[in-house]
């Protein structure tokens, strides 16, 4: 046994680094006095240390800790997205005025960011139901605390409470699903479940088959809650609006990436047969029509997200609904369950990272300046703060998916992968939804450029050089990735290897 542990830890260093970062930040927090930025820098360094270890991950999938955890290119890709998002969020937090109001507590805030990053990274590689549950809980509990971090704001506490209640329900439902799966297959290990189903060790006909379906639907409820798939999305707008905006950005990008990673692994390893891997499309055991269930969820999610977003006046809340819609788009890639679809999701996450974090950053700096996230208060911003407005416009266009932005390429590949798998109608729904989304994103642009400030105030709103620089830094990839997406695409295509039993 010691040998296995030593072998396993060898591949586990990025995760260990993150865990140590959390503990070190915590010790730093109580050992020093009022050095909150210090904790932030420590966490930033820790995340960077974990990041630089990622390239040395083995290129072939490895199973460690006796099948508990998988190290494969697929999880490594998502770890990049998560850790980089974590670092960006820490950097944003240095600048956030909202957090400065909680003076004396921000040290803890950074500790929690380290912990939640650790949990998300664990999610990407979990290959046992126990690990999946534990890592999701680690992320959830930390997120509850972070969502309610702004104690002085009533809406923040409300967000945390709603998050906890919905979260507890969905995690209970998911656990029940896991127990059914365990009852049917006699194992918690994902590859074990696959073997049990394939070998006929577990009965997969008649009522048992129906029970298995029910178990997976229950599991989907758990996953769906975390990525805010309709009908498990109720918490999203309130939590996104109430949480500190840095956390909202983190939840919208990294948390979604982690759950998509674990959800894809769960379906792919346990229920999909790679016999047809030559065509790049996976068939599921017993020809279960998962794709139909997921396709319906995907359509519901993007349609509801986009249509409700139209009525929102608060930009943060609008971005929450937009992120629901984006979860729907990305779910399309899971629907097709092909190599093309997987790489399209991964590519989309990279694009989504740039456009969403950019948008949230602008909302944050504007809220810090004018104390409002209301879209009507953005009137006349085009003249008063040109760089910021151009930035926000590009991020929103990118979120819509229009050229020449990164979002266009992301959506292009996602929709093509759907069409390649003969889901033409799904692709059409996706495109129609993008058109709807243009309406509410354009409303922000209209307010910024075509309408005067209510009191005719045209005095420029001055943002610091750092702010402008950050916005420009986010604009560049949003434009560049429209034309030079090839390296990212190649990387995504190379990263679709998921650990399977017998590999």
């Amino acid at each position: 046994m010691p040998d296995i542990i030593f072998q396993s830890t060898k591949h586990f260093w990025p995760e260990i680094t993150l865990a140590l970062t959390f503990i070190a930040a915590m010790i730093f927090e109580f050992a020093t006095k009022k050095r909150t930025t210090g904790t932030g820098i420590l966490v930033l360094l820790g995340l960077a240390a974990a990041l630089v270890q990622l390239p040395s991950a083995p290129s072939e999938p490895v199973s460690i800790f006796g099948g508990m955890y998988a190290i494969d290119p697929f999880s490594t890709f998502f770890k990049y997205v998560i850790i980089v998002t974590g670092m960006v969020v820490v950097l944003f937090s240095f600048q956030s005025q909202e957090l400065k109001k909680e003076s004396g507590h921000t040290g803890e805030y950074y500790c929690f960011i380290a912990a939640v990053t650790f949990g998300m990274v664990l999610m990407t590689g979990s290959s046992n139901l126990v690990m999946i549950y534990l890592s999701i809980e680690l992320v959830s509990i930390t997120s509850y605390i972070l969502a309610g971090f702004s104690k002085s704001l009533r809406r923040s506490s409300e967000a945390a409470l709603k998050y906890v209640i919905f979260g507890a329900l969905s995690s209970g439902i998911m656990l029940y699903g896991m127990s059914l799966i365990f009852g049917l297959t006699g194992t918690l290990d994902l590859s074990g479940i696959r073997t049990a189903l394939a070998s006929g060790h577990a009965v997969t006909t008649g009522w048992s088959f129906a029970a298995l379906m029910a178990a997976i639907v229950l599991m989907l409820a758990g996953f769906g809650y975390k990525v805010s798939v309709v009908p498990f999305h109720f918490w999203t707008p309130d939590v996104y609006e109430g949480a500190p905006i840095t956390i909202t950005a983190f939840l919208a990008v990294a948390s979604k990436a982690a759950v998509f990673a674990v959800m894809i692994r769960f379906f792919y390893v346990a229920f999909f047969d790679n016999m047809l891997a030559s065509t790049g499309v996976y068939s599921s055991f017993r020809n279960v029509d998962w794709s139909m269930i997921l396709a319906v969820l995907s359509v519901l999610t993007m349609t509801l997200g986009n249509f409700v977003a139209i009525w929102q006046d608060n930009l943060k809340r609008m971005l929450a609904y937009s992120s629901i819609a984006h979860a729907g788009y990305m779910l399309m890639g899971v629907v097709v369950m092909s190599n093309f679809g997987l790489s399209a999701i991964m590519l989309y996450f990279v694009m989504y990272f740039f456009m969403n974090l950019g948008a949230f950053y602008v909302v944050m700096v504007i809220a810090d300046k004018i104390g409002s996230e209301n879209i009507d208060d953005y009137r006349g911003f085009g003249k008063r703060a040109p760089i910021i407005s151009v930035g926000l416009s590009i991020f929103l266009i990118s979120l819509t998916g229009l050229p020449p932005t990164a979002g266009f390429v992301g959506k292009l590949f996602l929709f093509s992968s759907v069409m390649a798998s003969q889901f033409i109608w799904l692709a059409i729904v996706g495109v129609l939804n993008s058109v709807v989304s243009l309406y509410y994103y354009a409303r922000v642009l209209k307010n910024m450029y075509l309408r005067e400030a209510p009191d005719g105030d045209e005095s420029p709103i001055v943002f610091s050089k750092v702010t402008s620089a950050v916005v420009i830094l986010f604009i560049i990839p949003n434009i560049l990735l429209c034309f030079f997406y090839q390296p990212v695409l190649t990387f995504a295509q190379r990263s679709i290897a998921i650990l399977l039993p017998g590999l």
Partner: protein
Amino acid sequence: MIESYIPIFLILAVAVVFGVVSANMSWLLGPQRPNRAKNSTYESGMEPVRTAHDRFSVKYYMVAVLFILFDIEVVFMYPWAVQYRNLGLYGFVEMVVFIGILLVGFVYVIKKGALQWD
């Protein structure tokens, strides 16, 4: 298998019977001559007129949360202690890591003054 629980059920039964019997014995055996002064609620000589529902300090909550967390830690330690000899040095190291993690939390709580009652 279930037979090994007979002592537990016995002790449960004894506990219930003892509780019920001793609570009712005094009512059965003792003389009962109530008057107003005797029936009044005794609270350090003061008349207790407030409502029984009162807000408690959040400190109690803190103590309860910490109690659960360290309770769970002990639950994890127990099976290790039973298997200590078989698990040997590696089991010991693994447990030290686990306890070390929680020790940081304990020191944190003390340093942050969450247990101070002021």
